[in-house]
């Protein structure tokens, strides 16, 4: 999970320039992301962690912080997860 968080920190640093984001910080509440960011984040998660994000994942609690996204990645990549959105 720490490896995932490291990748997430690096990605966020590119999109929320000049600010340090702590793992529990509320990213979307920060006001520092633009209109394209939400979908860029989805694409980043899908490509880098080989997961599919579908409508069932569209809950703010899944994306609101580095910790939340790390948990989402863990859930989606656990052996019991069949994936979605073929």
């Amino acid at each position, binding site marked *: 999970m720490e490896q995932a968080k490291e990748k997430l920190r690096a*990605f966020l*640093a*590119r*999109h929320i*320039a*000049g600010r340090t984001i702590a793992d529990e910080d509320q990213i979307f509440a920060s006001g520092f992301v*633009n*209109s*394209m960011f*939400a*979908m*860029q*984040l*989805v*694409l*980043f998660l*899908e*490509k880098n962690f080989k997961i599919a994000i*579908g*409508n069932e994942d*569209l*809950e*703010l609690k899944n994306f609101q912080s580095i910790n939340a996204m790390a948990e989402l990645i863990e859930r989606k990549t656990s052996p019991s997860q069949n994936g979605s*959105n*073929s």
Partner: protein
Amino acid sequence: MELTFEQQRLRAAFREFADAHIVPHANTWDREERMPAEMVRQLASKGYLGAVLPADCGGAGFNMVGFGLLNEELGRGCSSIRSLLTVHSMAALTIWRWGAEAQKAQWLEKLGQGQAIAAFALTEPEAGSDAREIRTEAVVSGDDFLLSGHKKWITFAQIADLFLVFARSQRGPCAFLLERNTPGLVISPVHGMLGTRASMMAELHLEQCRVPKRNLVGAPGFGLSHIASSALDCGRYSVAWGCVGIAQACLETCLRYTGQRKQFGTLLRDHQLVQRMIAHMVVGVKAARLLCYNAGQLKDAGDPTSMIEISIAKYFACKTAAEIARDAVQIHGANGCSSEYPVERFYRDAKIMEIIEGSNEIQEITIAQSACQEVADSAAIAR
């Protein structure tokens, strides 16, 4: 840019289709401000309306580069028919990407095979570039939502069977599937537009349209950030390639014209000031196509940078098409100002491209912000 064998085969097929079925009629469709149903059927019969959907969903299964090539060739023939491909693909891709299984089962095959036409309904009289200002409201009523509001400038709304419509709710922006026959939905055709005049534009008036909750796409609150954003990404990509098509059409038309018409006893193509305009066209078309191709490859790879690269490609291709179309009219002189030649249509259509799916100015803001972030990131790393 080297296309694969399969991409070359696709492009040749698209080009042949456009030359046979679109190019000879585009001026008439433009003048009559309508797209014949038979043309839509032909597009469907070729599988082009399912271009972005996988084959197992009833689509043609093209990748994004293949979809781009289709947009270029249709756009070379007629921006109105290309705009049908754009809005229909935006809605179809959204259902595939974010729809519930029941929505996919109900619509994907129909949309993929062109048995139903879909349109994208976001813009309102008071909400253009700033989509957050939409005023169409969705209010919960038992197991349904009641939608009320006014959508404007909706491409192909005159014939669409299904609308991907956006509204604000108590839980934030939402996206819904709204069927044409829904009571309370009134569709009013819009005529007299500057360009893409055959795109059968209309306004939607929604008066307490009752929509079941199962027609919600995605989740409440994600309507703009994820649903509209991913659809518009597809739309920008489609428009960008369509602009390459407009620019290519201008170039080809000018090469023919300047090889036939003489002034001062010399073919126009031998006048150096005309040559400058032709050179500008050649380079502009190639550069725009390369940017689109790059964006398509990134999109096929699922790369998050594809979104900004699409924005860059759209910005450049639209500006280039507008400049090239202006020069194409100039080269044709008075002939270029008449409907006897297609360049005046290209000129009007190209202007529209600088406004739709994110105006030039919105792209400039987006691209500049992205560049500034990259610089700031590099500086942070250096520290």
